[in-house]
């Protein structure tokens, strides 16, 4: 189980958090683009091997959202970022 540093609560167990996947640009930038661009935005994920930026929510704690950079191969967590 990962230990995750919540920018508001400190280090807490992964089971208190919810991850909603990779950080994407805002939907407003894509919702009026071409069909292909919109569907690509909606359905394609990098599934990257290496460092991935994700949204996490400290759901069973303070309820706040933050960005986290995590290495998908080593599970190493780089940092938590509050300016989301």
């Amino acid at each position, binding site marked *: *189980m*990962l230990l995750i540093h919540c920018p508001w609560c400190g280090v807490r167990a992964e089971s208190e958090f*919810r991850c909603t996947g990779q950080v994407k640009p805002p939907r407003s930038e894509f919702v009026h683009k071409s*069909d292909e661009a*919109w569907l690509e935005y*909606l359905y394609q994920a990098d599934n990257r091997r290496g460092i991935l930026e994700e949204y996490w929510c400290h759901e069973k704690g303070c309820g706040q*959202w933050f960005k986290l950079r995590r290495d998908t191969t*080593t*599970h190493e967590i780089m940092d938590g970022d509050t300016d989301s």
Partner: protein
Amino acid sequence: MSRANSKRLHFGGYIDRTQSLKFKFNGRDYVGFQGDTLASALMANGVNVLSRSFKYHRPRGVQNRGYADVTSLVQIAGKNESPNVLASVQPLYEGLEAFSVNCWPSVSFDIGSIFGAFSPILPAGFYYKTFMWPNWHLFEPLIRRAAGFGKAPSQAPAGQFLNRFDYCDILVIGAGPAGLLAALTAAKSGARTVIIDEMTQPGGSLLYSKTELEGQLAIDWIARTVDELKSMDHATCLWNSTAWGYQEGNMVCVSERDPKPAELIGRNWKIWAKQVILATGAIERPIVFENNDVPGVMLCSAVMEAIQTYGVVPGKKAVLFTNNSSAYDILPYLQVAGIELAAIVDTRSDVELDTVIGTDDSNVEVLQGASIQLVIRAGRRVRGVVVHAQDSSGKEKVGKIECDLVCVSGGWNPSVHLFSQSRGTLRYDDNIASFVPDQAIQATLCAGAITGEMSLAGSLKSAVQIGSKALSRIGIEAAPISIPEVTNGDHTNYQVDAFWSSTAGHKRVKAFVDFAGDVTVFDLKLAIQEGFDEIEHLKRYTTTGMGLDQGKTANVNAIGIIAFHLDCHPSEVGTTTFRPPYTPVEFGSIAGSQAGDVVLPYRHTPMTHWHKEYGAVMYEAGARWRRPGYYLKEGESMNEAINRECYAVRNHVGIYDGSPLGKFIIRGKDTEKLLNLIYTNSFNGLKPGQGKYGLMLNEEGLIFDDGVTFRIDDDQYLLSCSTGGAPAVERKVDKLINVECPELKVIITPVTSQWANATVCGPLARQMLQSTESDIDWSREALPFMHVVEGIIAGMPVRVFRVSFTGELSFEINTPSRYGLKLWRYLIEVGQNWDICPVGSEANHVLRVEKGFLSLAHEVDGTVDPIDLGHGWIVSRKKKDFIGKRSMEIRRQNQPVRQELVGLLPKDSKQLISEGAPIAPANKQELSDGFVSACVWSGVLERTIALGVLTDGRSRFGETVLAWEQGEPLPLEVTRPIFYDAEGIRLRM
């Protein structure tokens, strides 16, 4: 000492001969001593066979030590019944009752052993090849019964399991000499230290050795070291505890058995450590030869432990078979136990006998460059061995030696399981003919025999070094520590021959590589012939190293044998990845206190007790909320109750508990923008007191939820959603306003359980409410449909919403939860004059089907959009954007044929059809045309009615379609999806 302990020495061992313990095995009574394991007590009583093997049901006895003795599998009976317990680690206690597993009907006469007689039909991959669809059902009952490991307990355990979390500086796994000294180094330097060991006693291999430290038996040093550790508050010792999983974040899962207090059966720890030191030691490796599983074939370490620890004599006349120097340590043990040594069979041809055998044993014949080919058995016990050797001129000869005990040592396999689980890499070490840790990925260090260090002095030295290294990594200065001197019995010149198997693996030869899974050399050979030449495939195809063994004894031999057959070096074969658990862990231990009712607790409304007293049958309404399904009166059937409740709502007045409905308060200057984004229709200009129905889509353009939103006042809106959908709606909106559209200045607060709701509905609802003590004007003019008003009823603050899910005049009365029961009672009392009837969710369902209202998880199944369900009217054409708009438009670009909501009238008006029944043409069963989403008996229509979705349904009104139920076609007429008050006059009254 009782006569029963016929194989017990009169002296020695760490057992208490003054404390007899009675126990039962397979229904027979035995006596053992305090300090015994179940296995040692059985051996002492001359019981050879502990279990039957998994595939061939061959008799198996004690072969190995501790958790590596996978053939000692038994089932413990009694109050804490447990399957799959290893007799070699189960401490004996008074009254213990155990049974063999895989024995049906009994351990002596085993019907499953016909598999042995016909064994050519059970080669590698047999299950994959034979028990395949469509005939699996023919084999399943027999195989399930014959192949199961033990039986699942029939009752919940008498005690309790708990979980515990811990954080430490240094976690040491393994309390053998290296682990103890590493832990002492850490703890004496002030580091918060945890040391764990899977056995009930710390000491590891020293427990049964005759090695001396500082001139005393090693166990004295263990006792002193443990005392010193325990005297320090910042050190924690966990014995009888298995580290079974090494996860990311340097977190180790530990299953502690029989912790204190006594009511606890087990405790599962999750320990996060800054540094982990693996001192897991090494497990002795078997050698593969024909019949190497017959009871009486034991590893040297198991024989030494039996004699030294338990005072048990496992045989009268032994043959020693080895490929390495460590096996010679056994000679003084055999002598003490009075076991005659018939011969030493050593695969090596350059053994310096003087250095390995003392002068006393010079009369023992040592056959060099020799190997055991075959064990001869008599009944269920070793009777002799057939040996291949070379005479002095190098000529091959085959001889037979009589014996009842074969002591085997195939070298030592470092216990690299946890290191591999941590994703560390392994490396083959030719010096020890086995795999050792290579690159660590996490904060992991290794000390002692796990690194391939086979001398005790070397292990102790490495323990202090590694302990200091771990300390320096976390910035703690290591305190000075003295390394005890090994004064006698060390193994300084370990030498091993990479000899795995004495058989090439002919078809009928039962030479076992994996005892737990009954995998033979022939199985490996066959799999290679069939093209499985990659170790991960070979493992799965043959099951070698899977199951109970988890590679403890089988893996390295398998790799060696595979390398031999592929004509390559073992390092080229490589290892499979070790995965948790290291040894079986009880589900209860993982669950801890999170079991039964508290895993997902139910949520109850304030009126629950009233409902139950009134005869409610409670249903789950979604999101764990409990709500009445219907209220049963005496002598009434369920259908009669539902009809009665429906009749009340349609003809006078009903009341239901709507508290579980999802509710959120939304505030902030961009609330209108948010509502316009999440709903398909426009929420512009909603005035305080007004409400609007909305459909929520997901970004894929499919219906996600629906509900009504009211503007309570200038500042706040109350959004309601489906009961079961509330958690998902909250998560979705929360992410939207925090992450996807952070520019929206909005706050959402879930208030579902803050408000109780009593909904009064029916044509007489207004009359009834007008007779309550209230400041509310209930008239249509003052409180029209889709409006909300705040007021007081009988002193209680309420909000009344004009919404209707039944199709009748309806008032949803919300009050703070603390008033819920009082309000409910008051309304029931006032309602007596109108014959008010409490109604449950079954009646609600009938009423909504009559009206064609949508229900999540019925019509809304995650594949439909608003137009499919005839809700095109609610999709705004003016709004540039709302969630789901873009995707819905793309999906509908070329006017695709879609499945649409329809009403369905069974031709037989009494016929009920199951929800989900497919609709398909008579001659084309393979193509479903849609399905029946709901079917109920309608009291007002005096017939059954149904809703469903049907391909191009709205253009097919009047058509007859077939719903298929149990292979029977049932004709239905397609109609508009509304059966009652199509104009919607009644609900707007």
